């Protein structure tokens, strides 16, 4: 009985989450010398990347401000704060390292920190391990394939990164779209996490 229930849950989860992104079906292999993807959106040390943030999770909405700054050739500093100005978290991050300077006790949870680290890594860094390239309807996809994780980068006709698809063992994990791109700044960014379900909308603002 218990086994049947578990199988049913796995089946329902597979239906709701499985099969990956339909946008990635029927991709045609394409020969490209490109073996790395640049992410230009948080790469200028002179720019303060300030965004308003709207997070929707389980019908709850949280607003705030996030500041992302490249501080040297390796590290970015990222601070997320409420509208009222108090810091919810403050981190120094590189491709392989997260230094937590502060985190509010209410969100200092292992699963939340892991989710945050995955989102930030996908959001601000490119990829040096591209091993497959594809073409579909004049769109170019570049895949970085690990043991469990697959990340596909979609570039437009001007070779600009516009979307990122993340899958884990064939399940949808995360989708990021960079919109309203001007001078290497994505003025709108949408991040959709599928499990747990959470939508993050970022709008660039300039004092």
């Amino acid at each position, binding site marked *: 009985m218990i086994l049947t229930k578990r199988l049913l849950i796995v089946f329902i989860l597979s239906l709701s989450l499985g099969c990956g992104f339909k946008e990635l079906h029927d991709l045609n292999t394409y020969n490209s010398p490109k073996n790395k993807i640049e992410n230009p959106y948080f790469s200028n040390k*002179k*720019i*303060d990347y*300030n965004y*308003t943030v709207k997070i929707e999770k389980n019908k*709850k*909405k*949280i*607003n705030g*401000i996030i*500041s992302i*700054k490249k*501080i040297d050739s390796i590290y970015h*500093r990222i*601070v997320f*704060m409420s*509208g*009222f*100005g*108090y*810091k919810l978290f403050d981190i120094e991050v590189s491709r392989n390292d997260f230094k937590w300077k*502060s985190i509010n006790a209410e969100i200092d949870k292992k699963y939340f920190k892991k989710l945050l680290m995955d989102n930030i890594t996908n959001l601000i860094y490119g990829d040096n391990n591209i091993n497959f390239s594809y073409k579909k309807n004049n769109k170019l996809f570049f895949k970085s394939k690990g043991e469990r994780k697959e990340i596909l980068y979609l570039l437009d006709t001007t070779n600009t990164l516009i979307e990122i698809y993340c899958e884990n063992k064939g399940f949808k994990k995360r989708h990021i779209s960079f919109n309203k791109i001007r001078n290497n700044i994505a003025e709108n960014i949408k991040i959709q996490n599928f499990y747990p379900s959470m939508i993050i909308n970022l*709008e660039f*603002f300039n*004092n």
Partner: protein
Amino acid sequence: MHMRKIILIFLLIYQSSIGQIFLKEVEANKLKTNIINSSLNTKNIISDFIQYKHLSFLEKDIISRGKLVYIEPNYIKWDYNYPFNYECIFEKEKLTINNEGNINQIDISSNELFKELNKIIANTLKGDMFDKEKFNIEYYDNRTNYYIRFIVKDTSLIKYFSAFELSFDKNNYGVLEIKILEDENDYTKIVLYNKIINNDIN
């Protein structure tokens, strides 16, 4: 004697050059009394504000704007309209946050940070912030305004902020600026302007 005069002149020049004069006890007590008396006559305040969030690693401060409403003794509304609409109402032990129609109510009695922030701001507007047990208090005259620095003594508060600083109008002793200092030179500064005191509020 001649040397003493030179030193005195040098000290006076130095003090005026740094722009602020430390007030001695008698002057400080007089300032404190004037601030308390001014606040006793304040029933409500409506004011525009600009909030500067200073993070030491950024080129520029992050600016937010909005309107503050204070009704004595315990109602404070921060109504932000830039960079996004956001409303924070502190009333007694409750904090109500209105995120574009999505309303959350938080019991701040269990949240040390909110409780202290609310207390500092409410007490500042009420003129009731001179708590010598929690803070070392320093009084200054910076020529254009009076300026009071509250350095946190209470170890349970230091993890949230190290000090706060208030600027007061020299004419009416009303608060002009609230600056809350955090770690590593980061701070939040709120500047009040277009302030209306004791208006009819329905």
